[in-house]
Each structure stands twice: as structure tokens, then as C-alpha cells.
């Protein structure tokens, strides 16, 4: 069957003739599925959230909430979507919907279906820690130990990770009733069809080559095929989670002639740990990476909860984050501190580039036309002391004024090795090289840290803008190091974080 379609609430929704610039949200709304809405068109508000069945580590599937306003509808061809309308009906509310109603979680109701989908994804998360006394049926209990790093998150009494709602905005309720509903959720019932669905594999996106009014959308099957396309079409744009492309498509009317979907290329979806290095495929979503790493790279574990929102992390990738080379992305500072290496692939072959050599200017990198980031790797050996400091106005889902990532080793009270990655202080993410040098060999004492903090405050060339002044950014750099010291004063140095 040549026709492209996406399964929505159990029914096929044809995608033939849908242009690459049409978002999944617009395709759903055109079919009368108007529960998901366009609140901002840039992945901030979550009013567009829907559920998608994605592969789970156990070979089954998991329900993942994503922003529907950002990805091309075509990128979901072959996949399986559930919307708020599909979860329940007015006469037969889904447990998440029933809790929201019961706790007063909806006022104007505009954002609510989006919250429903984000909450439902968390409701069905197999490794959500349960509470005794809830209707826990044992489903997923066997995963609890493996994922106990979730305890670090803001978990509710029923294991509900509050980060699940970090990408949904509500202007009416003040959130308390929504959180009450989230914390009141029990376990899915034994006959819950969406819970049962998790036992089956998630459908893979189908390869496609669509041309609508001169605009092409291609989902190749292999990396080689993708690289050939990129070599043959210099203007082709590779797309993974579309969390950046979707914004410029929606708001700046950006219409590339060819989109090449790389988010499911097997070669870009590796997750591998050798004796030497931990390797993350460029098209692995941040949520997938977080789950697979399970805390074994502590600096990334510190990064993830502060990185955009859960909805974004469910689509965004390290490859995309480094590909756009934003100076204020939060991924690069952490990876710089971890001495990350990139593997770049093209039709010419592959090459390795240290991330510290990768950025060359504002949104400029050594990546050549036709070249893709294939993998990101970091050493297995982890630094003794790590931290990710993000200075921003809001706690989550905000843009950093300054981001500082630390990876420091201390032996016998002396810093033996320091890697510090910075964001928001220059046209590129950068290593705080002068600070690293000043710190290395210094005693880990308050006096020495005070001295080095002045060096750190002088790193980079931060600009003042409406988010923060230059003076504040600089001051926060120095303050950040003093804070790190306060948290890791000698008495506690060496203790695992």
C-alpha cells in the first residue's frame, strides 16, 4: 500500500497530499480533532500535546507526550497517535481526565487536553514508582530499582514526576488543582487498553518520499541513503525532533525545498557503552538518553531536568542541539565539560571531532555541508564532582542567562583536573579554559576558589539583553563557582553527588 497515513485514536488518518510544512497539529485539527490546540506554535505552552507510541526498552511500547505543533505531520506516517478525545469521552472519562475534573484542574479548559496527554504519559510510565495503598497491580514494579534515579526528581507521593508537566502552561488554575490531580493518580486498571497496548511493539515510521507543490519530504531507511540525499541536495535540511525547525516553519514561514528525516535512522540511534566511552546516537531523544543512562553520567543527569521541558525532551536530540549550535543551548556546556567527542558522517566517510574544536562562531561549526552528526560520546570515567548551574528567571523551561557545567576531580584537597563548559556568555558555547588552568593544581579551599571565581567571571564576552545584563552574567559566573564550593566544601569532597 503506497498511501501514507498515521493512526489516530485507532483510525487511519491519510497523509497523502499533506505538505511538509503542515504540522501534525494542523493535520489533526483538520480532521475535527480540536482538543489539541495551537497556543503558541513554538513548543512553549503544550496546548497541542498528544500521545505517541514509541519503542520501549523491553521491546514493547511506551506512551510519550509530544508537542504536535512542531513536527511535520508527515514525520508521523506509520506511527500511532492518541489524543485527549481518544483517551476518553464526556460520558466515560479516562482516569486522568476524571481526576482533573474531580480536583478542579480545568477552568477555561483550553489548555486541559494538552495537560491530559502529558499526565497520561506519566500515568502509563511503566517505571513510575507506586505507592502502597493505591490500586497498584504490580504492573511495572520490576522496573523500580533500575530507575530509582528518578527519586532525585520532584516525584509526588504516587511517583508522578512533576517534570512531566514542565511543558504545559495554564493561565487559570495556578496549577495546584492540576498537581493535586497528578498526585492522586493510581495505577492503570488491569483492563486498561492503553496500558495493555504497551506490550506490543510500537510501529516504526514508514520510509517515504513525498513531493507536494515542489516541496519534498524524505524519510530514508539508512544513513547512507540520507547522506547521499544531503550530498545531492545541498539545500536539503535534516530534521530529527523538529523542535527548532517547527518554530521557524510556524513563525518565520521557513519552507526548505527538501526535508530529510533522520530521527529513526538506526545508525543514529545507538546507545552503547564500551570500556572506554559512552556513545549516544545523534537522533536519540533526550528523554531516551536520560532513561538509558539511568544516572551513569551524573552531569547529564543534572542537566536533563533543567533542559527545556519534558515535551521538548521527548522530541529533541543532542544531535539537533549541537547541530543548530545555539550559544545558549544547555546541552553544549555539559558536553564540553565532559570532553565529548562527535562523530561526523558524510559520503566521504566519518571523522571524529572534539566538541571543544567544533564551534567556530555564532551558529557556525566545523560541520561541512552534507555532513551529519552521527554520535556523541563521552568517556566512561566520570569526574568526581559535577554540577550544572543554570541561571534563569523561571525554574524550568526557560532560557539560560548563564549556564555553567562543572566536571572537576580533586585529590588530596587539590584540584587535579577541571573542565568547565559555559553557555550564554559568548557567540558560541565555550570551555572556560583560563578558569580550568587557574583551578588545576590549586587547593580546593575557599580562598583559592574566591581567586579563581574572579577568573571565571572574566570568561567569554557576555552581552546584555532583556534577559540579563552583561554585569549580571559575569557576576553569576563567579558566584556559580563559589556556590559549587559551598555545596562541595572539603568535608564533603569526594562523596558521590
Amino acid at each position: 500500500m503506497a498511501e501514507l497515513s498515521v493512526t489516530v485514536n485507532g483510525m487511519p488518518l491519510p497523509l497523502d497530499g499533506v505538505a511538509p510544512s503542515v504540522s501534525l497539529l494542523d493535520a489533526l485539527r483538520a480532521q475535527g480533532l480540536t482538543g489539541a490546540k495551537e497556543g503558541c506554535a513554538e513548543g512553549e505552552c503544550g496546548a497541542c500535546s498528544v500521545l505517541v507510541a514509541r519503542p520501549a526498552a523491553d521491546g514493547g511500547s511506551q506512551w510519550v507526550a509530544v508537542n504536535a505543533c512542531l513536527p511535520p505531520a508527515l514525520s508521523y506516517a506509520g506511527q500511532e497517535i492518541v489524543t485527549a478525545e481518544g483517551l476518553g469521552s464526556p460520558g466515560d472519562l479516562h482516569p486522568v481526565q476524571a481526576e482533573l475534573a474531580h480536583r478542579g484542574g480545568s477552568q477555561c479548559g483550553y489548555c486541559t487536553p494538552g495537560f491530559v496527554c502529558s499526565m497520561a504519559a506519566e500515568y502509563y510510565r511503566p517505571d513510575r514508582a507506586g505507592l502502597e495503598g493505591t490500586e497498584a497491580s504490580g504492573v511495572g514494579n520490576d522496573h523500580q530499582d533500575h530507575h530509582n534515579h528518578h527519586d532525585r526528581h520532584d516525584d509526588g507521593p504516587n511517583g508522578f514526576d512533576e517534570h512531566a508537566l514542565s511543558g504545559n502552561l495554564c493561565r487559570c488554575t495556578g496549577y495546584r488543582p492540576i498537581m493535586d490531580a497528578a498526585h492522586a493518580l493510581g495505577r492503570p486498571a488491569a483492563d486498561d487498553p492503553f496500558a495493555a497496548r504497551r506490550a506490543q511493539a510500537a510501529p516504526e515510521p514508514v520510509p517515504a518520499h513525498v513531493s507536494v507543490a515542489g516541496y519534498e519530504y524524505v524519510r530514508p531507511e539508512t544513513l547512507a541513503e540520507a547522506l547521499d540525499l544531503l550530498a545531492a541536495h545541498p539545500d536539503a535540511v535534516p530534521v530529527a525532533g523538529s523542535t527548532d525547525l517547527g518554530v521557524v516553519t510556524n513563525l518565520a514561514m521557513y519552507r526548505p525545498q527538501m526535508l530529510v528525516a533522520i530521527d529513526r535512522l538506526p545508525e543514529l540511534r545507538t546507545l552503547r557503552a564500551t570500556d572506554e566511552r559512552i556513545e549516544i546516537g545523534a537522533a536519540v531523544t533526550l528523554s531516551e538518553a536520560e532513561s538509558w543512562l539511568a544516572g551513569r553520567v551524573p552531569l547529564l543527569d543534572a542537566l536533563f531536568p533543567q533542559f527545556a521541558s519534558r515535551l521538548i525532551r521527548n522530541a529533541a536530540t543532542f544531535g539537533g542541539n549541537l547541530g543548530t549550535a545555539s550559544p545558549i543551548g544547555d546541552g553544549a556546556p555539559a558536553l564540553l565539560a565532559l570532553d565529548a567527542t562527535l562523530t561526523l558522517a558524510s559520503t566521504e566517510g566519518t571523522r571524529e571531532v572534539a566538541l571543544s574544536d567544533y564551534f567556530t562562531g555564532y551558529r557556525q561549526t566545523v560541520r561541512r555541508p552534507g555532513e551529519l552528526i552521527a554520535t556523541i560520546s563521552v568517556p566512561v570515567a566520570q569526574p568526581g564532582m559535577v554540577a550544572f548551574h543554570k541561571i534563569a528567571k523561571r525554574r524550568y523551561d526557560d532560557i539560560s542567562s548563564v549556564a555553567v557545567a562543572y566536571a572537576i576531580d580533586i585529590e588530596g584537597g587539590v584540584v587535579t583536573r577541571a573542565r568547565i563548559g559555559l553557555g550564554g556568555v559568548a557567540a558560541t558555547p565555550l570551555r572556560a579554559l583560563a578558569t580550568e588552568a587557574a583551578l588545576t593544581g590549586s587547593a580546593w579551599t575557599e580562598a583559592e576558589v574566591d581567586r579563581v571565581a574572579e577568573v571565571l567571571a572574566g570568561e567569554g564576552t557576555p552581552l546584555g539583553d532583556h534577559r540579563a545584563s552583561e554585569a549580571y552574567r559575569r557576576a553569576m559566573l563567579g558566584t556559580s563557582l563559589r556556590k559549587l564550593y559551598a555545596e562541595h566544601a572539603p568535608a564533603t569532597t569526594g562523596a558521590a553527588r
Partner: protein
Amino acid sequence: MTVVDDRPATEVGSPRRRKEDARLIVGRTRWTDNLTLPGMLHLAMVRSPYAHARITSVDADAARQAPNVVAVLTGEDVKDIQGGLPCAWPITPDQKAPTHPSIAVDRVAFAGEIVAVVIARSPGEARDAAELVDVEYDELPAALELKAAAADQTLAHPDLGTNTSAVWTFDSGAAGTGGDVEAAISAARDGGIVIEREYRQQRLIPAFMEPRSFVCDPTGEQLTIWSSTQVPHFVRIFTAAVLGIPESKIRVIAPDVGGGFGGKLQFTPEEVITVLAARHTGKPCKYTETRSESLVSAHHGRDQWQKLTLAATADGHVTGLKVELLADMGAYLGLVTPGVPILGAFMFNAIYTFPAYHFTCRNVFTNKTWTDAYRGAGRPEATYAIERLMDELAVEVGVDPLEIRERNWIRHEQFPFTSVCGLEYDSGNYEAATARAKELFGYDDLRAEQARRRASNDPVQLGIGVSTFTEMCGLAPSRVLGSLSYAAGGWEAASVRMLPTGKVEVVTGTSPHGQGHETAWSQIVADRLGVPFEDVEVLHGDTQVAHKGLDTYGSRSLVVGAEAVIRAADKVIEKARVVAAHLLEASVEDIDFANGSFTVRGTDSAQAMAEVVWAAFSAHNLPDGFEPNLDSEATFDPVSFSFPHGTHLCAMEVDTETGQTTMRKYVAVDDIGTIVNPLIVHGQVHGGIVQGVAQALWEEAVYDDAGTLVSGSLVDYTIPSSADTISLTVDQTTSPSTTNTLGTKGVGEAGAIASTPAVVNAIVDAVRHLGVNDIRMPCTPERVWTAIRGASGSGGPSTAAAASHLGAGAPNHDPDSGAATQGGAQ
């Protein structure tokens, strides 16, 4: 009557789950943007990028040639038929205002003003073609900064000759409601206390979640307009007035509306343009704004400078308050723009027995988005100013901020109390609310912790903020509105229709957009008529159904709108009583009505309401001359405002090294009179508090030096997310209002009015020992840090070289800090 055992004794007071929820939560309901009509056309607006410019030419030829474009309308095309947008509140006879075209004709006065509209067969094609409209501008100097604009340094509208729209004054001495404030200040300068402060109310954006959407269907005898509005009745009247269409030929429907907060209390250019487009093409037309359009063109709120002088005796008894405001109107006067500061004029004296008071406000034009009502409208500004000042007075006197308030507030035995503004507060008990709040807060323990942290020089300091607010809401007695030169009244209408099967239809002139009227009105009517909650259907938001009404804003719906419902229901009972007496062969005077049943006093003869309704419907056996109809209407004009009050206590932790603030605890004890539905009330209070907290901590509409809105997306206009809010403790004390049947008071705005000063007072309290006595809102980490460093006492604006949201080369832009395309657009 079916007897249902598990029902509450009364519906009023019961936390009924909302009737509205199922359809909203499942996502199967009617928002304006969901509507699709046969042959529907779609609009895209061409907006000015300049704050102030002369339009020298508009070339729409390329757009007209674009695929599936049906028409392009420019200001020149519609200048003779578009009329001017209305301002319903000329606060002074000599108020100055520019004409306000829906589509600018020869000059634009703010960035975002509409200069042309493209009408096409799909929204995408309309937007693409809008990019092709070539407008040439001659840029003019723009009036941007409020104080400079007030000094007429640059004129927002050169033809007016000044930026001052109006100056409005209230003086208690002149009004005979109090003493002379100048005398009080002079006296206080000699041995008393005079506190002089200047506070800034930053510009805010209502930022309702549903972007505005309008549909106009011109096919049919009546023009039908669907609008995501708070005020369908206003839209009907003003569509008639502005476009010269008979009101009887217009039907306006507000279907489900996704929040408003005052931001949809407006008659907008976009509504006029949608109607013009539909009439021009003869086809249904739809316009749905994008988020960035919403943030730049839906009206903004607040934006004042407040110069304040408080006089007090040495022991902290306030003797006078003088308020001098500059209020930024923005570029035009919207529906109630000039009146917003006036709604605050009578509230600076708040809960206190001030003997002398003077208020003056200068309304000033700038070349920015026009301002208008935003949750609280005038009263948050007043409450902020006085509650900040009372904390300052407490410091001067050297007593606890709650103590200074107690020395000045109206004691509960003084009610009803006539304020220095001449308003009569009907009821209240500030002592009770404060005592309860202190208890829930653990006030003394937190003060002790604060002292410990100060003593140990903890980098994270703790502050406690107090806000003992009141407000005037329940807009409004029509005569008072008339005395303030407002064009309309403040009554509300309702009708109650008894269906033959025993079901009840309640038609309300209020127009909910999240407040749960369908549920609350059902509870009230179920009690009143003794019918099951489920049997009551509440109809609203369609001028063909609810033909009469003044809509929803100003915390008026329950205290004014529901009172009309009650009175209509009571009229039904009185009519039914006549029928019941006839059926029971008794005298009308001997018929009692309770629990849905008419009884003959002293007997067990009874007729259920349903039986009486059927009798009236069948009309087989009615008293002679009795019109076979129990349906009733009522219109209620309140005799007074509603005066809810409360004590809000907030504890904030301030990291003195980074300026970052964290809310530790928040307790709100409100007195909102009788509560109809605690679930809904808690929701209103919670949501209101968080909006007020957002003003204190996060939100600000920032313009750059060219007059471009920098915070023009939800990335930069940072409304709070769930992670930014804590679990608030909310409780009530109750002093029933004496001015309506149930004893209710308004609640929709209370939280937003109360919370802002509580938060800022807490932050200032946390760092006052470091020499800080003010931090300008929003208290961002940088402003707090700067205040602590003493670089500037008030933080100051942090705008500099702001780049547009999507501008090429904007070095600090990254929409989600986590992009995932490789290469992407750049």
C-alpha cells in the same frame, strides 16, 4: 419530585464538580477557531513593524495575485465605512483621544497596528500573501517612555498637541468625605512621619491561553458573529454603532472562551475587520490570531508610575495619603482604558480609616499597544501601593507590619463603614481573617527563623510579606457608573424558563470563560426552586438566547448576575404560587414554598413544583386571567459595590548571592461572603494569586528603544509554569454581604489583587537589613541582586539592545534551549 438521598442539604456551599468539565477536558467542545462554515474564507493581518510612522503607500497587487487570495483590504479601501473604535469611558468632559481606525489609513501609532487584511481560501495562503503586501512608511519619532511622554517630549499623536488624554482628581476635602491631605502632610512633617515613594506598575499582558478568534457569517438575515470575547453583548452593540448595522440584524455568540482576565473585555479592530471582510466577500470569514499577534495587539494592562505621600503620626496612625499617578494609555483608548486607573482611585485607602485622601491621575498616550482592563483593573495597582507603604510605615515606626495595619484598619464593629472616598463598605472582619492567616502561616515561627538567618548571615535570607487587601468589585451600581461618566450601566439580567418536563433553563446575561457559571448557577437555582442540580441548564453567551446582559468582568457575575437569576427564580415561584393556590383550593397568602413543594400552611396538602409547571403548561385548569407561563425575567441593578477582603501572608527565600527568589509559604485567608461552590472558589483564588505572583516575579512587557515589543512570545513573556508555583494554603472567613440575597462577594480578581504586594513585601523584608527598601517589579534575580549590591535602589530597566524574537543573528535566541534539527534554518 424525585427524592435523591445523597444530595447535600443545600447545593449552595457544596463543592459540585463542574458541569463544564467533561466536554472541556475531553476536548470535544466549541471554540471559535474550531468552527468551519461552507465556503469559509480566512484572514491574515498585515501589521506595522513601526511604533509610529506615516504610511506613504500600500501596494497589495502581488498579494492579490497570490494563490487563492480573494481580496486585500487596506485602510484606504475601508476608511469611509470602518468607523472608529469606541471608548465607553470618557473620564472627563475634555478628555482627548485620537480617532481609532480598525485599519490604519495614513498613520500607525504602535508596532502591531493593522494596515491591511488579506482574505484567502486558507489560513496559510492568507498568511503567505500577507508577506507580499508592500507597505512603505515614513518613520516618525515615537513616544515610548511614560515619564518622557507625560512631559510631551515626543507626541504620540501630533494632532492632539499633547500626550495627556485627561487628568482626573478626587480630593476628600473637596468631596466632603474627609479632610485636607496637604494639611495632614504639613502636620506630619513636624514630629510625625512622612513617607514618600515612587512605585512602578510594569506593563503586563493578560496572556489568556486561547488566542482570540472571530468568525462572521454574513449569509442569512442576521449577521452572525462568533467571538472569543468576554462581552458578546458589548460586541453586538458596538458592531451596530461602529458599522451602522441595525442591532437587530446582529447576533453575537461567545462559545467556549479560553480565558480572558480582562483581556477579552474589548471591542477590537480584528472583530470589525472580520465583519468588513465577510460583508465585502459575502462569505463566512474567520480570523484567528497567532500567539505573537495576541501578545502585541490584544490590549495590555497596568503600566503606571505611582508617586505616593503618606502622612502619619509618630506612632503610625495614618493621617493622610496623597496619590499622583501617571497611567500609560498606550496608543489609543479602548473600551474602558481611561477608567482603569479610576477603578483604583477609591481603593488606595483600602481597609484603613484614613481621614484625608487625595488622588490625581494623568492619563498619557504613548506609541505602544493600548492598555485596558487586566485582572483587577486599577485595584491591584492601588493595593500594591498602599500595602507596600504600610510595610514602610511599620519600619519607620519600628513595629510589626501586621501591628501597623491593625492600628489603622476598620474594626469589625465599625461596619457598615463609609470610607474616605465616600464608599460604604457593608461588611468585613479584618481581625478574624488576619488571626486565621497568622495561625495557618506559623507567623511567629517564621519570624524566629528569619531572625536566626539574619544573625547567622545566611546567604539565603527569609522575608515575610503581608497584604491585607480589600477591593471594590461586583461592577456596578449604574448610578455610580453614570456619575463616573461611564457610558453603560452595571445591571445584569436573567431569565428562568420552566420546561414542561420539569427541566429548567436559566438564561444569564453574564458570559463565562472559565468561571464555572453553568455549575454555580445550577446550584443556586436548584436550591431556589427545589429541583435537582442536573435538571438545570444554564444558557449564556448568545445574544439570540441571552438577549440582554452586560457580560463578565470586574468580579460581577455572581454578585450581580446570579442575583438577577435568584430574582427571576423568585418570580417563577410567585407565579407558581398562584397556580398552586388554585390547584390546592387555598388562598395565595396561605401557600408556603420549600424544597420544591407548595403546601397549604397548617395542612399536609401539597403540590410539587413539577406538577405546577405541568399545570401551567397544559393550562387546563388555571386561575381566571392567569397567563399560562411561569417563565420570568429579572434585571438587577446593584445598590453597592462588593467589598471582599483578606489577609495574605507570604514567605520568600532570597539567595543574596544570585538574587534568586523562592517562595517558601503562602497563606491566603479571604472573606468573600457566602461561598456557592468551594471548588470553584479555590480555583479562582489559586489562579488569581498565581497571576499576582507572576506580576511580582516574572512578567513584564518589555519594549526596545524602537518601540518593538521584545517580550512578544511565551518564550520571553514568562508566565509561570507548574514548577514555579508552590502549594498555596487557602482558607476563608465569612462575613456575608448585606447587599445581595445570598451574602456573596466577588472573588475572581481577589487573588491577583492581594498577592503582588505580599510577594514584594516579603522579598524586600528578606533583604531590608542589607539596606534595600524597594525592588522594582518583576523582581527578577538580576534586579534583586542589583538592589542588594546597591547599584540601584530600584533595579532599573534591564532592557538594552533587545533583539526581536526571531531576528537573524539574535545571539541570545534559542526558542527551546534544545533544538533538535541538524542544521535547521541557519
